């Protein structure tokens, strides 16, 4: 009995010990990721801060995507259409819905493309907020400039939202909460105020190692663009939100920061860019778009792309035929015959389109379509709901990069280049003094490069002349929707679209999913 008792006691003690050892040691459940970082163990050095800044820049790549701000600003206009080719590009009817302007807050193109555009812009804003917040608690070299770049990019993302949706919720901290929607005027003023506040922190240009970062002129370019569109961006009212959907929305009569007239303010910004001496029109039009366009003297604010995995531009994938490039492109985006035909055949800028017999753009050998016919692009599209492989002129403004890595091409995409600045100045001058000769001269600067793209126009200058010049010069650069709205022509009829589609469409619907996530957001009128 005694022996048994001893054994039992030893057993019991051993067991209780075993029970208690893990109890003490293993109730700690705090979590630290082992292969990613958290804000609390980051942002200590300039290198870390610069990496976070690169992340804010990286968000720009998405803005020029096909189902993003760029796609929405192009396919919803007369510059571009994505025909259904057999089953290809039907995609739940999204592309034709976008082109025909039949979207609603809950329709497929809104839930896809507008939702992407919204999320992309806000993701960029959130990245900037994380960085700007962190900069509040750390001191590094170049702090003011780094913060200035982050705030510029944040302002640019807000600008994209303002352009598509009107006033939006504004937040400058990392707090996750439901922020109410701001008016368009206060959104405009927020962006303008931010830009003016950080302008002097930015350099006028960078050394060879940092080309592509935000300069003082990038601030001026964004402001010039906003001032030209001031009536669209700042108006309030019922219906189309105070925007004149069927007539021109002039910068004349609008007052912006510093009490200046908006037209004059736009001119001042353009003049300031020119006076900086950093930028000039490229000798040739194509220099702005080629794969080595990083050296173009004309591009003021660009998305830098590189021929590396995940860092490249894939515009050629959207437009080229399956057999024109490797990897196989998607044979989607084309321009309208009416738009192609609007170009003067003598205008060199029309060469941005591919029409007629085609070659494989890498090998230069004649290309065939899938039925083994010679591949020919036509300007017309007989039936947009059952187009063939070769129908529609293709956009080839950004040629392939010989050093491309898969679909990643190194061509930079310019959101602002000097040519647009001249066109902004011309338009603003024409609003101050309609028919002004100075306006015509300014416009003609764009046509008269070292290698002129077209003969100078004789005038007289009109609003339509300026709008057309923007069509020729800035085609496919994501500006068309903005331009058509300013000129009161966005809801009109064009090929494959009956119009007018309703004044309210100058503001995009806020995707229902976003209203679900934040019920404080009110929908735009008409949706």
């Amino acid at each position: 009995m005694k022996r048994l008792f001893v054994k039992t006691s030893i057993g019991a003690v051993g067991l209780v010990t075993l029970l208690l050892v893990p109890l003490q040691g293993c109730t700690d459940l705090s979590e630290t990721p082992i292969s990613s970082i958290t804000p609390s163990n980051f942002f200590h050095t300039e290198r870390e801060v610069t990496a976070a800044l690169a992340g804010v820049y990286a968000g720009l790549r998405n803005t020029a995507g096909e189902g993003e701000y760029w796609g929405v600003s192009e396919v919803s206009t007369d510059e571009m259409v994505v025909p259904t080719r057999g089953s290809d590009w039907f995609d739940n009817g999204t592309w034709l819905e976008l082109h025909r302007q039949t979207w609603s807050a809950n329709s497929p193109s809104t839930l896809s493309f507008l939702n992407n555009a919204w999320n992309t812009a806000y993701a960029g804003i959130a990245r900037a907020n994380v960085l700007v917040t962190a900069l509040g608690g750390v001191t590094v070299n170049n702090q003011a400039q780094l913060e200035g770049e982050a705030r510029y990019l944040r302002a640019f993302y807000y600008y994209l939202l303002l352009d598509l949706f009107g006033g939006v919720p504004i937040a400058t901290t990392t707090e996750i909460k439901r922020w109410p929607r701001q008016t368009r005027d206060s959104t405009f003023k927020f962006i303008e105020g931010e830009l003016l506040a950080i302008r002097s922190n930015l350099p006028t240009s960078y050394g060879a190692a940092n080309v592509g970062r935000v300069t003082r002129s990038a601030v001026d370019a964004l402001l010039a663009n906003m001032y030209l569109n001031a009536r669209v961006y700042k108006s309030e009212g019922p219906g189309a939100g105070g925007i004149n959907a069927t007539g021109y929305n002039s910068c004349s009569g609008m007052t912006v920061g510093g009490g200046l007239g908006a037209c004059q303010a736009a001119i001042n910004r353009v003049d300031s860019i020119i006076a900086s001496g950093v930028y000039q029109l490229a000798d040739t039009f194509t220099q702005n778009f080629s794969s080595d366009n990083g050296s173009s003297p004309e591009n003021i604010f660009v998305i830098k792309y590189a021929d590396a995995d995940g860092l490249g531009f894939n515009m050629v994938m959207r437009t080229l035929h399956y057999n024109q490039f490797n990897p196989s492109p998607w044979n989607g985006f084309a321009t309208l015959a009416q738009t192609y035909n609007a170009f003067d055949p003598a205008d060199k800028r029309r060469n941005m389109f591919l029409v007629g017999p085609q070659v494989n753009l890498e090998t230069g050998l004649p290309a065939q379509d899938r039925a083994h016919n010679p591949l020919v692009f036509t300007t017309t599209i007989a039936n947009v709901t059952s187009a063939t492989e070769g129908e529609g002129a293709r956009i080839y403004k950004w040629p392939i990069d010989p050093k491309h890595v898969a679909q990643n091409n190194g061509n930079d995409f310019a959101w602002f280049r000097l040519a647009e600045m001249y066109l902004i100045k011309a338009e603003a001058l024409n609003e101050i003094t309609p028919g002004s000769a100075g306006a015509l001269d300014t416009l003609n600067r764009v046509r008269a490069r070292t290698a002129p793209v077209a003969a100078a126009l004789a005038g007289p200058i009109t609003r339509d002349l300026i709008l057309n010049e923007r069509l020729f010069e800035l085609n496919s650069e994501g500006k068309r929707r903005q331009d058509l709205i300013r000129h009161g022509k966005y809801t009109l009829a064009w090929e494959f679209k009956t119009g007018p589609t309703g004044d309210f469409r100058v503001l995009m619907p806020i995707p229902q999913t976003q209203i679900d996530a934040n019920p404080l957001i009110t929908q735009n009128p008409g949706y």
Partner: protein
Amino acid sequence: MALVRRLVLALVACLFWAAPLGAQAATGAITGKVVDASTQQPLANVEVALAATPHRELSRSDGSFAINGVPAGTYRLRASRIGYGSQIQEVTVTAGGTTTAQVSLAPAAAILEPVVVTGYGTQRREAITGSVSTVSAAAANVGVVTNVDQMIQARAAGVEVTRNNGEPGAGMQILVRGGSSISNTNEPLYVIDGVPIYNQPTEPPSYGVGGTPPLPRNPLNLLNPSDIQSITVLKDASATAIYGSRAANGVILVETKKAAVSGGPTIEYDSYVAASSPAKRLDLVTAGEYRTFVTAQVGSWRADSTGFSTRHPPTDTIFTKHFADSSNAFAGLVPSHLTALGTANTDWADAISRTAVTHNHDLSFAGGSEDTRYRASLNYMKQQGVTISNGLERIQGRLSATHKALDNRMRLGVNVTTSRVNNQYIVFENRGGFEGGVFQNAAVYNPTQPVTVTDALGTHYYEVPGSQSLRNPVALANQITDLGQTTRTLANGTAEIDLVPGLTGQVTVGLDYAGGGRQIYFPNANPLGGTLGGGLARVYSQDNNTKTVQTLLTFRRQVGESHSFDMVGGYEYSEFKKTLAMGQGIGYVTDVTLYNSLGSGNTLKDSSYGELSKLVSFLSRANYGFKDRFFVTGVLRYDGSSKFAEGHKWALFPGLSASWHLTQGGVVRGPFSDLRLRVGWGRQGNPGIKPYTSLQKLEGGSNASYPWSDVPQPGVIPTSVANPDLKWEQTNQYDVGVDFGLFGQRLAGSVEYYVKNTSDLLLEVPVPPPQPAATRIENVGKLRNRGVELSLDALLVSRPGMTWRTGLVFAVERNKVLDLGPHQFIRSGIVSGQGQSDQWAERIMPGFALGTFYGPVFLDVDPVTGFQVFACTAATAGCLNGRTTTRGVPDAADYHVIGNANPDFTIGLHNQLNWGKFNISFLLRASVGQDVFNNTALVYSTKSNALQDKNFLRPALSDNTDVHEPAIFSSRFVERASFLRLQNLTVEYALDLPFLTNSARSARLYMAADNLFVLTGYSGLDPEVSSLNASDATDAGLAARGIDYLTYPRPRTFTGGLRVSF
């Protein structure tokens, strides 16, 4: 933590108050013999126990038993054996005397173990108060069974098991009482020999081509089904609450075979060979039909081309100039499609199929002394897929040993399983887009072209010249290397010690280590390899590592005649760690080195990843029984998981249940031999989210970097949104059940009704801006599952020389989303295929079931235009009389609910007939009333494929849809998919050959057929489709059910085998 401390104290106090102080008395013995009541043959392995005492013995092979050292007194002697109704009789033992008891057991309808593993211990079947289904491993291990999941299929009511596809060793989707989660995992918890395992994929992912990679194979492939002793499924919350946080989707307890309890050493050998072929193949247009079709379409083109000038204005000079080459815009097909026609006749679905051979060898031996016993087994299995160039090979060894020490007061046990699984994969699509893998190309590749051609370069695979998205499927399967292996060791050691009579302490340490590898090479020889950059190689290495420590105190005590207590309390700690490393090279001069020389590639890339999570639990269960008449079970578990937000890591999971045996004490008589009522309630959790979900993470990578001056600058971006309120998803479940036995247990069964309310759903929802990621996981919404389950077992025939048992399981399950917080709906079930971007087949909406199809309503095809016509209202442009008149879909406002992927009910029927030397069993499964979206038909039964010289499915030939009409998702492709399947038929014959039986104890020969037939109206390959369509099985994604897209065909298999034991 104060709560925990109090809990533990209370538990310990509770366990000791009833500590007994037994007195020794003079003893006697009981001897006797057990026989089968119908055959009068002796019965071995019958457990003979004296109720309320620790005395229990097993009958020997001649049916005899002896229980010695029994204190004098009157006892209830209970004899029970699997497959027989238990029997109780009173015996009186006198001091120094030997009492004789003759026991005769009647065969019962159900083959049930008398003792059930219920988690952290076992319980007598009678004492169970929750909803528990047991599956006899012996009955379920028939035909070609590669893993545990297959053994449960149609054998437990309310457990829906669906194989992802027909790939060898394919993963399984298991829903216990319907899925209770939307974006969280719905997989049950697996517990092997008492140790919960993290059932994560053990192999690194594949490289997806033109779509997402195929789903990973089943991590449970490591277990050899022949090593499994029993499977228990805990279904309701009162039964599963002991597993608390991980139990919301049910718990599957797997017990492996242990050393033989009695008898001498045994050796068993089991071997089978099986031949499989696809049960059904894609019904493709044949080469001859394709030629006829193209020729006829070219005829339409020629007729239409005369109207050319009216459609194209002469101003279009470019067009006019190249009219001869480019005018594709007419009806029908351009004449040049004729030149794409070859002279071969290839059935591509046939070309990628084969008759596959499987062989399997099991050898096990067991033995030992009274104190130390062992069982060892070895398994080798090699299974070919019914599609070429893929298969599975498993080599597995297992050792289990037990040792009794200190006069059987201490028991030690060790189980070690080590397996190596070698998987060979082919490139196929789980969900796809523009390009695809083997199955997509088999569906669309031109049937008039040959598999191989011989020319000046020799014999090689035919490829369409210049084509960059159409690829010879045979070449894809044969030329691309995709290998995966898992070496996994599951080990656990247990020490159990009786502290004082009735009180047992137990410590278990479990280790689960899985090393997974993957090697992929896309050669230059294949055009896909060329497109990816001139040869692409990837090598992965993955480690999954789980450590578990369990300490348990178990207390069993009978107080007087009436009161029995059974309590367990304990602590469990587990830690799961996963690391993954990948290296990739692109651009190889030669294919000779495959993936073995990454460094010689042109561009290299690598990455690594790691995660760690912990789960800490305090658990207790108390079962009280009154006179074997009333039982009450209470469960309390307190779980802490590292995955949740600070301050929300801990949660309490209670359960309470009771049962009342109406047949005990004579409340009910008549035909009822057994009648029990059960009620239960409990709360469970679901922590199936990834670690670090509550934190804001910053990550680098190409998404974050940005080139200044064309030099990529490493960047860092926030990739997730913190959620400081992230907590457990909780399910409250109520269960009412009746268990009954009639006519002396010749008919037995149970009926159950349950309601499961899940709240605080871990749902991936949009975050209010500004947000670095569009969504985060939040606790939003409510879901309800309700259902009725019926299981019935009958002993139809029982006479000497013949017994026939039949069992039926029947389940009805209804689920409904009750609340989605602020969200009106969430899209799910993305549609695959060319031209289907941004198309979703399902919506999760309050008031509707998960798996509700939503889209345009198809009416018919306009015979004049060939357009598909959809129902519409005036709001849609061009809507006339409720019909669309233009090509395309109506406005989004005209979309409706067009189907429900959930069955009305499911049935499983299994039969076992023993007749002389024959043993015949078969299993039928049926599922009725569910809809399946035939995504394959949507994309591949559209004639517009011919515009790109692609083939299509044959039914399209006979409908009048225009050749230019796109594939449009609509109710047209949502089909009723009820089915009845003969899952398995096995005939076994006992050999009585003298030369064999002289040395062998038994030798049995068997033949089996799996998936012999399916009766269904569904037009696709198989009506049974995976319930989840997730791109990544580690993240279950949103609940999408019933979508059929180019699945790997399911095999029909014939097996012949031999089982010998010595």
